[in-house]
């Protein structure tokens, strides 16, 4: 059904938009970073991306219709990983999950996910003109038919997903999703963690996958029984009590 909706929306796009082509785009600079080479692009910030398994980043400085853009295309092992890194970079979007995609428009950035790729397009001018043409430009690079991440049905979610559900793949991303998870999951190996904050109640919930039941049992010891919503074979669905982040005043690169 998702695919049908997407195809339908693509068909609705204005003909003028589809008529645009990459020949209208001026590529000022293009660079590729693979694996740990990501450190060369974003210094210590790369650790988070590598936790999700980013194996290639292509970054392009573009000019389109007189506007400057930087487009970063991250390639990851799965649509869930692509959604995961995307979900950590989404905050109070001006517009979400439109045009048949999972996407987020903010004042200086348009982000989207398609298949196993996460796309971030930044327009430093922040101008209305740059924002307006961002959709056109991004569609030149994003395939029309993209597999969506498999969001567990137990979470009971409907689109829009952006800003509602987040996905963590390891301890760094889990602590970014909710800082108090850092302590709760200390020493616990998990293979994936879907995190939802209920809009009305502000209650946080996490659906966690494990590679073995030993880790599952260890975590169950740390979670109050009343907070366990569901427990199954190598998975646990829990409420997560909120605790605010500690001051984080440094970057690993001298500032």
């Amino acid at each position: 059904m998702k695919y049908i909706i997407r195809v339908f929306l693509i068909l609705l796009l204005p003909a003028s938009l589809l008529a645009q082509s990459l020949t209208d785009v001026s590529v000022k600079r293009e660079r590729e970073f693979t694996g740990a080479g990501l450190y060369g692009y974003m210094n210590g910030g790369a650790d988070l991306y590598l936790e999700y398994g980013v194996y290639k980043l292509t970054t392009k400085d573009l000019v389109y219709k007189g506007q400057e853009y930087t487009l970063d295309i991250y390639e990851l092992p799965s649509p869930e990983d692509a959604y995961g890194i995307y979900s950590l970079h989404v905050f109070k979007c001006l517009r979400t999950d439109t045009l048949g995609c999972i996407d987020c428009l903010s004042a200086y950035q348009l982000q989207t996910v398609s298949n196993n790729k996460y796309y971030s397009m930044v327009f430093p001018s922040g101008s209305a003109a740059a924002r307006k043409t961002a959709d056109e430009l991004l569609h030149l690079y994003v395939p029309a038919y993209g597999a969506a991440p498999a969001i567990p049905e137990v979470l009971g979610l409907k689109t829009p997903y952006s800003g509602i559900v987040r996905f963590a793949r390891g301890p760094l991303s889990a602590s970014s999703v909710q800082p108090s998870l850092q302590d709760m999951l200390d020493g616990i190996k998990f293979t994936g963690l879907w995190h939802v904050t209920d809009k009305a109640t502000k209650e946080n919930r996490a659906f966690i996958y494990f590679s073995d039941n030993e880790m599952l049992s260890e975590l169950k010891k740390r979670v109050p029984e009343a907070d366990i919503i569901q427990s199954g074979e190598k998975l646990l669905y829990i409420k997560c009590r909120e605790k605010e982040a500690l001051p984080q005043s440094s970057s690993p690169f001298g500032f």
Partner: protein
Amino acid sequence: MQRRNFFKSIAASGLGVALSPVIKAAPGFTAGDEKPQTNIADAVAIPRNENSMPGKYPGSVVKVNHGSCVVDGKPSEQAAYYMLKASMLQLTGEKDLGKAWLQFVGPKDIIGIKVNPVAGKLLTTSHAVTQSIVKQLEEAGIPRKNLVIWDRREMQLHETGYTSENYPGIKITGTECQDAEGGFINKEGKFYSEDRIDKNQYFYADVEGEYDAYTMPYMVNGGKNSYFSKICTEEVTKIINVPILKNAGAAVTLCMKNLAFGAITNTGRLHQKLWHETCAYACAFPPLRDKVVLNIVDGLIGCFDGGPSANPQFMCNYNTMLVGTDAVAVDRIGHDVVIAKRIEEGIQTQDKPDAIKYLVLAQELKLGVADRSKINLKEVNV
């Protein structure tokens, strides 16, 4: 062996050892339990002068707000000019803008404008504000040849538009620098940056800086000393500090951090245990304490989370500018602005007392006023 480990092993053996200065520490000063010793006592012992922080107007901060200073996503130079003018006149009580500037600098001064390009093009000290400063200094009779725009990283200045093309006649310089091919090392096998640091003036802390070969050019040296840039110790006679209104976790990165972490080497080691101490202590050394005459916080556009980097989703138009000679007081006011925004956006629910620890330390060192109740805030709406 992984790439980073490989680099680390190089740093730890040859290059790293060669660059790690072994200079005996001055008598230490311990700020609290379990804090590494530092040489802050040495700094405190050096007599102050008439320019020493907190400068001419201790505890005074001017906050100028302008509802349309960002036009279509871009800071307006015209608006920035008027905001700066209003700030200067309000701060000094002068009616003439030139006289206001000449309270702090003179035609014989070499004036270093310390900007902050670390977050890249997206969130650098805006050219609207920097150009306004340059223009007003010129109008006050300061020749362009006496102006220096600086930061610790010259390459980041260039990337963010601080170039001779955009600022003709003004020197653009940084401590850490590269050659035209992007190399950091000269023919003698030394970092170019080594010639730009003053090994006689340093902040010592009993924490070892150990970096891989990739990171080392950005630190200049490892070891336990952080050397001051010659830009501060030799090149300039006065400093105008122009940070951006940004958060750093639940704290802020404004005047004190822009100066402290922007003027010394080997900073990576200082974050974990000594972030607050470094922000305060480095500013207590003469190259900063006795030269910083004015602080202008560019709050036209800023960020409330994700700082000090630029994460687009957390950027916002604060539409404001904070000005004062007292970097501590300016930071205290800026802290309130940023934290209020973080609370409004749901990032945190309340202010955290520990977040202003560096300001309390700075006040103890007589660098300025951290006590909010003793700060005279003048707010102007343009």
